[in-house]
Each structure stands twice: as C-alpha cells, then as structure tokens.
C-alpha cells in the first residue's frame, strides 16, 4: 500500500460483506476503513478523509438516506450505495439525497470496481473530457464549447432541449442520474412530474445517437431509477 492509495470507508453491518469488501478492495490497492453502524460511519467519514464511501442502505441504527444527508452537509465525497433488490424507491431516494451510484446485492467484484473507478475519476476531473471541452466515448464525440455532437464523423443536429438533456448526461458520464435530477436539470424544477417528457426525449436521443435504439450502447436505462451514459 502506498501513500497515494485511495481511501474507502465501508459502512455495512454484515461482517461477511465487510470481509469480502476489505479483502478484495485491499487486494486492488485501496485502503479500507470499516464501520458497522451509521453513526460510526459518519465519524469515520469525517476523520478518515475518504476518497469514496460505500454505504449499505439497510443499517440497524439509522436510515441510509439520513447517513447520506449527514455526510453531504460537509462533504462531496462520492458515495456508492448497496441495496437489496426490488426497492427502486429507496435507491431513488438515496440518489436524490446525494448518493452518486448504487449496486444491487448480490453483486460481483467486477461491477463494484467499475463503479468505484467512475466515481474516483469524476471526483478528480473527467479524463474523457479533455482540456478543450471535447468529450468522447465510443463513436460519440461532444464539443461542449461549440455545442456540437458527432456520431463518428457525422454531426448530429439536436434540438435545444435534446442538447440540454444530453449535456447533463455527458457532464455526469458513467453515473446514474435519476429521473428527477434529469428533469430538473434539463427542464427546470417545475417539470418534475412530467417524467414521460424525459422518456420521449431519451427515445429521440437514442434514435439520433444510437445505431440500434433497441439495443443501446451509450444511453442506458437504469430500470425504474434513471439513466446512465456509458463510458
């Protein structure tokens, strides 16, 4: 372990999962601190100055959402939540409260590492977005300064709202964005009940940017939660 190795605080009450996270993340060069209660987790998050927090939503002493809110009062450290299945609303609540991404139990190490990488990259700066404000992923290229979007070499024309929506996704590339968040960012706070707007525009974007909209490569749906631009 080197000095520069990233610090991760794991807040999780199940010792078996803590063990799995500690050993596997440790083996991948992370420095792991553990907490089995929400309160203790908040303290750990304060004193360890973590680069990332992994938080289980089902804690015995307090609601996961409250832990997120408490941490968000003084820190923008990326938070990845772990949740059980079929609790979409909990995930959405946690994401809206300030969590950055989620994983559904059971999950594999590969998935977890991918998410951690995305979050760590974001918290520094986006390497996919170079100095001139150009963002690229696969065949997609976006010039955030001149507001131009290319698929391959071909420029694609987007309507103002389509572009606004797309740019929100680009700025948070790799992260899951809830319906609420996207609506608020692209349309403004008064549109938060019109989630079908979002779906229709996402569909339009897919038709313009994806090769096959029914098997999307970039604009991925997080079922029941939101969307994610794949990097």
């Amino acid at each position, binding site marked *: 372990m080197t000095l520069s190795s990233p610090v991760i605080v794991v807040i999780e009450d199940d010792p078996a999962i803590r063990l799995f996270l500690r050993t596997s993340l440790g083996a991948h060069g992370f420095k792991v601190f553990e907490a089995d209660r929400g309160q203790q987790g908040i303290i750990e998050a304060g004193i360890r100055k973590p680069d990332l927090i992994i938080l289980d939503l089902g804690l015995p002493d307090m609601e996961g959402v409250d832990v997120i809110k408490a941490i968000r009062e003084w820190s923008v450290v990326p938070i990845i939540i772990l949740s059980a*299945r*079929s609790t979409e609303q909990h995930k959405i609540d946690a994401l809206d409260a300030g969590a950055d991404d989620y994983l559904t139990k059971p999950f594999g190490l590969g998935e977890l590492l991918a998410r951690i990488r995305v979050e760590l990259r974001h918290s520094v700066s986006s390497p996919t977005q170079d100095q001139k404000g150009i963002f690229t992923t696969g065949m997609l290229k976006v010039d955030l300064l001149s507001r131009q979007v290319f698929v391959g070499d071909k420029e694609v024309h987007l309507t103002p709202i389509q572009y606004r929506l797309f740019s929100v996704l680009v700025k948070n590339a790799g992260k899951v964005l809830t319906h609420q968040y996207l609506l608020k960012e692209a349309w403004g706070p008064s549109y938060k009940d019109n989630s079908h707007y979002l779906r229709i525009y996402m569909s339009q974007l*897919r038709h313009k940017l994806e090769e096959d909209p029914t098997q*999307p490569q970039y604009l991925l749906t997080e079922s029941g939660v939101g969307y994610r631009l794949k990097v």
Partner: protein
Amino acid sequence: MNNERPDPDQLLARVERDKVKAQRGRLKIFFGAVAGVGKTYAMLQAAKERRAENIDIIIGLVETHGRKETAALIDGLEVLSPKLIEYRGTTMREFDLDAALKRKPSIILVDELAHTNAQGCRHPKRWQDIEELLDAGIDVYTALNVQHLESLNDDIGQISGVRVWETVPDTVFDQANEIELVDLPPDELLNRLRDGKVYLPQQAQEAIKNFFRKGNLIALRELALRQTANRVDAQMLDYREDNAIREVWQVNERIMVCIGPNALSERLVRAGKRFANSLRAEWLVVYVETPELQRLSAEKRDGVLRILRLAEQLGAETVTLNAPDISSAIIKFSNERNVTKIVMGKPTRRGWKRLLLGSVVDVLISDAHNINLYLLGSPRHEKGSIVDKADTSLYRRNPLPGLSRKLALRKKNRSIGYVWALAVTVASTLLAYLMFGRFELANMIMVFLLGVVFIATRFGRGPSIFASFLGAAIFDFLFVKPYLSFTVADSQYLVTLLAMLIVGVLISNLMANVRSQAKVAGHRERRATVLYAMSKDLTASQSEDEIVRTAVRHLNSEFGSCNVILFPDPDGRIVYPKAPGLRESLHAADLSVAQWVFDHNEIAGQGTNTLPGAEAIYFPLSNKETVMGVLVLLPVNLRRIFLPEQQKLLETFLGQIAQAVMRVRLAEQARTTQVSMEAERLRNSLLSSISHDLRTPLATIVGSASALVEDENALRVEDRLELSRAIYDEAQRMSSLVNNILDMARLDAGTIELNKQWYPVEEIIGSVSTRLQKRFEGRRLSVDLPEGTPMIFVDTVMIEQVLINLLENSLRYTPDKSPVEIIAEVSAFAVKVSVADHGPGIPKGLENQLFEKFYRVRHEAAQSGVGLGLAICRAIIEAHGGKIQAQNRPEGGAIFSFVIPLDQAQPVLGPEE
C-alpha cells in the same frame, strides 16, 4: 308393538323441550279465580323470600291499587321505572321491556299477564313481552285470573254474563313452569269486597259488583281449581313418561278442527283446544276453501282468517286447503296427517235440503271409517250466517289493522248483470212471440233457457237466476192459457214451468261454478307462472346482490309493495345494503325492528303481533333454523299479503329467496375452500421444489468451498479457479431462484402496487437487452419494433421482469447459438410483444399449463429453475389487465406473447420552446 318402549318421537320431543327450557327463563304464574284473591300480594311475598335468599329479583311492574299491605311489601325491592306513553292526552304507565332486558335480573315480577299494552309498545300484549323476557333467559313471576284464559273465555262469558277482551293464549299458561293457585273462599272474598279491600275501577263499579255474585265466584273458583288440577295431571303424565311408567302410553292423538265462514268456528276452535288439551294431543285447524267459498265477501274471508290466527295463538297448526269438494279434501288431508279425531259443527242443512244436497258430516260418517267425529251444536241464537258477530268479537281481540279496510265493492258490475238479464229475457220473449203459434211451447221454452245459459256464462248466478224466474213468469203470463194471467189452466204446464225454473237454476249454478273454477285455475296458473318466473331468475343469479335485485323486483310486481332485503354485518347487526337501491326498493326500513325479527326469527310489523304500529312488515328470511336476513315489505294493502293464498305465495317466495341466497353462500364457501386447498397444494409443491432446487447448488457451493478451505496447497491453480467459478455460478443460480420465489410471494400476497408510468416499448426492450447482454453472447437477439409504436402505461420494472423471464426461458430451452427474436405489434387497442425462438417448441397441449406455478417441461432437468418464471409473467401481465400466451410457431420454435391494453390516452408533449 312393544309396549315397554317409550315412543321415540315423544322422547325426542321431550329432549327438545328440556333443552329449550334450560335456556329459557322460567315462568311462574300466580293464578286466581278473580281479582281480589291476593295474587299480587302472594307474588310480592314470594319475591321477598327470594330477595332474602340473595337472588337478583326486581319488580318490573306491579299494581298495588293503593293497598297498604301490598305497597309495604314493595319496600326493599328494586323497582323498574315504568315507560310513560302519551296516548290521546293521557299518560299511560307501561312495562319497560327494553329496560328489563338491559337490566337482565335473574327474576322479574310483571303483574297482570293479560294486560293489553298501549299503542307504541313493541308488542300489543303483555304476555308477548313476557315471552321475550323468557327467551332472554330471565325468570318471570306474573299473575293471571282464570277468566283471561283464551279457551275458557267463552264459557266464563256465558256463566257470568261479563266478557273480558283481554285474553292470554292457553299455550302461555301451559308452558309455564310453575302455577301457584292463590285461592280464597267466595265468602271471604265477598267480605273483603265489602270492606273495600278489593280494588275496582271507578267507572265500572256497578257492572263488576254484579259480577261478584256468589254463584259466579263459586263457578270461577271451580274453573280455576280444575284448571290447576288439569295441569297437575299433566305433570303427573310427564313424570310417568320420564320414568317409563307404562300403562298410560297412548297412540298419538291428532285432532282436526274443521271450520267454515260462520260464528260457530270460534267456538269450534276453543272446543278443539280444550279437547286437545285433555287428550294431550296435537291439533290442527283446517279451512277448506271451495270455489264457492272464494266468492265470499272480503269481510267474511277476513273473519275466517282471524279465526285461523286465533287457532294459531291457541297452539294449533292451521291449514287452508283449496279444493272443490269439502268432504273429500278433509278425508284426504286427515289420512295424510294421521288424524284420529275430527271436530266440526253440526250440519246446518236440515230436512229435505240435507237429503237432497247432502252434508259434509254425512259424507264423513260414511267414508272416513277410522276417524271419530265430534259434532258441536250451535246455540239457537247464533243460527244462520252470523259472521257479523264473529266480526265484532274476533276483530276486537285479534286486531289485524288494515284488514278491516273495505275494498271497493264490485256492485256496479253486478247491477249491469241484472240489466243484461232483463234485456236478454225481453229479447227471448220477442223471439218466442214470433214463434208463437208456429212452434210447440216446449221449443219456445228452449229459447228462454238459452237466454238463461247466456246470462249464466257472462254474469254469474244472481242475474241468471233472476233471468230464470223472469223468463218463467213472462212465459206463464204471455204464452200459457189463460193468456195475460199468471194462473195456469192446464196443470201439465205447471210441470213445464217448474221444470223450466229448476233447469234454469241448475244451469245457473253449474255455470257459476265453472266460471269460478276457471277463475281459480287462472289465479293458480298465474301464481305458478309468477313463482316459476322468479325461481328461474333466481337460479340464474350468481351473486347475493343479483338475488336481492331479482327478489325485490319480483316481490314488487307480485305484491305491489316497495321492499328491501337486509342482511347482517359480520357482527350480526342488520345494516342497510351497500348496493344502490332499485326503483322498487324500500328506503325507510326500521333497523331496530329488522334486528328484532332477525334475532327472533319471527315476523313483525304492521298486521302482526309485534310492533303492529310499524308501517312495514318485516319477515325473517330463513332456511330452516338459520336466519339469513330480513325482508321488509311496505304493504299497499294488507289483504294482498295476509290472504291465505297470498301468504302461502309469499312464504314460497321467501323460501326460494332464502334457498338462493344459501346456494350462493355455499358456492362461495366451496370456492374459498377450493382456494385454500389450492394454496395448500402450492405450498407443498413449493416446498418440494425449493428443497430440490436450493439444495443442488448449495451442495456444489459447500463442497467446492470446503475443498478450497481445506486445500493445504494440494490444489493446482486451475483447479482452484474451477472450484471458485463453480461456487460463483451456483450462487448466481440460487440468487435468481430466490428472487423468483420472493417475486412470486409478493405478487401472491397482492402487496405489490404497480408504479405505472408511460414508457416507450423501445426503452423497455433496450433496458432488457442491456441487462441480458452477457447471457446472449454468441446468440443473435433481433428486435422487430414498428415505427411509431406508442408508449405503454406500465410498471417498467415489472414488465422488464416479464421480458427477462421470457428471454431466459428461451435461453434455457433452446439450443446454444440459436437466435431469439423480440417482435412488437400494434393494434388500435393494444400492444403485443412476443419472444420467439427456434427451439424444439412446446409439447402439444401444454401451452396453458406452462404458466402454472412450479410447472416445468422437463421435470428433472438439472439446469431449470423452480418453474416460477412464467407464473410470475402471467401474474404481472394480468395485473396490468393484459394477457399472456404461448404457442408453437408454424416454422418451428415457440412464441410467447403478452398483450398490454392501450386503454388510456397517450400523453401529449408540449411544444419545445
């Protein structure tokens, strides 16, 4: 027959009686010959003694009539405050039944059993109040004078010349548990009367003093003593029955009293009652209604009805038979019911009329061999049709409010008949006049007879008899020598005239009978049709609501009354129906009356003995013993409901409705049982499936993990990797299995709330194909989605689950590398999404079973899941109001499709700014 064995029927009856007795309160009657013998005093003294024994005894109502000795006894006893009822300006003190029921003491004192309650009380009579107290398990002490006993009422009236209207049915007296005779010799009573110790109402002093003659007092005392002795006798018999003391066993006697529309009937019923009592026999009162009797005036028929009700009150079973011939109906019925004795009135026809027309009694004497006949003569002054008297006396004692309302008479119709009779006779005369001289007189008579027949067919007996007489007179006057005179010269014409008259009258009678029989047949047919129509509709009714609607409509059309059927809630409280009412529904039913009817399984309301002040009539809707609900009927006319044939019809209606309700409830019960059995079966197969499907991967996981744990460096790196991968794969399998089970459990429990929103079909397919990308490596997943497919209003997480399950199903059951297609089709009302594969297809006939829980095509296939995937799909799609099905494709392979209805308008998108 073995004489040693007690009759099982009788024993059974005893057991029933004892059972009822045990739950019911005990009734003790302080019985006296006349007022003033000290019944109330004795009763209060008994109460004092009970009180001293620490028994919870209270006074419900006692009249001390200002006597100090009596009033002194009340001290120290709890007295229920009376119910005050305003009636025509005066305030009446009445016994408060509800307060007593609420207080529920072990014993309650209620004086004057024969008292008639003021209007506004629940029951018209106090003995009915007491019955209810007994039903509630409260013991009652009460007092009664012998003259108030229903069956003795007549005799005492005749002895003393004073008749009382307040009577108590003998059944109440007979069913009392204890009778205590309070006796006082007449001389002492007269002394007390002189000393002013006997209370007499002011207004009737003289009349009552007349009543207190020594002769009267002796007679009354004798009656009271005898009545008590009879009871002791009966108790003795009971005792003997209990202890199987033989000798007195007798064949069960059954007495039948036949009544008709005359005043003798009332006496017959009373006599029958006494007769039945003395023989300890069952008794029936039968009224045979012939077509002729059906033509009686409404008042007379009401008189018969009242007598039948009186008989019921005296404990008889009453039957109305419809038959053309009285004697044969009686014989048939008595044979059916094993009647041993018949009580009836002496024949009223006498002399030649009896010889010529016969009498019921004569026919019975000659034809009913095994039956003893008892004939009751009528007192001279009551001879003939004396329904008027019966009307007044019976009406007062058995009030049937509303029944006395007179119907519009059909006199007008009748007078038209006479006008016609006149006209037809005049026409016959004209015709005969034209024939005069050219034809024989006999032929001319035929013309007149023809006229009579015509009148008889059209207008009945009266006008046609009128026409016969008129015809005979005119014939004699005009065509028989000497002309224009009523004298008859040739005596042979006398015979002609007489024959003409007799033939005329006979024809009239015959035709009239035919007419009324046709009418009766018509009535019957109509009733049968009405019943058939209702039972047909009831059979077709599938739910309680539907039955009620059908019943309400039919009852309304038959009885012309608004009505409603009320059912109890789960706590047994009658509540108003939740379903909206029909045009025919009654909206003002009194729930408290309905509750009473429901609790007691007895009819109440207008025209009955319970709460006659209520506007509607309340019938219990019961199936044998269980009361299911209450029918409330607002009568437009009581006659339409209480006439025997109508009552029978209504009873049949009620029976059918009750049966239909029962049928639906049983079916419902059977369904629930079926469902719970199904659930049980599912639980069992779930257990067996889970135990198999969870254990298999667990075995691999435990085995591989233990190999890794216990490895002491013996394993090669590849082996370790292999074992780890096995653990990983099996854990994944278990994970999806557990997910399925949890999904199914949540769907089954119905706890899932659909979070429906508008989603493009394309997005759902896209999301699913992303999620299954890894599983489809090496396979082609093609999507056929038409341009402009509309959005669907669904819970996307659920619908994605359906698609994933269908796709995984295809992966599982088709060979590797074979392609899978997702096809969407759009119609005006629905979107259909199909998953088609190129596998072996579905075995024939299993297309529907696939969607059953725990169903698997290849049962022991190691790689399959629990068989819940498709069941989950079906549950989800059905929750969305759609359909799911499986088929084989003609070109090979299976196709699973689900349909999501488009039953809402697509959302509109505002224009982009």
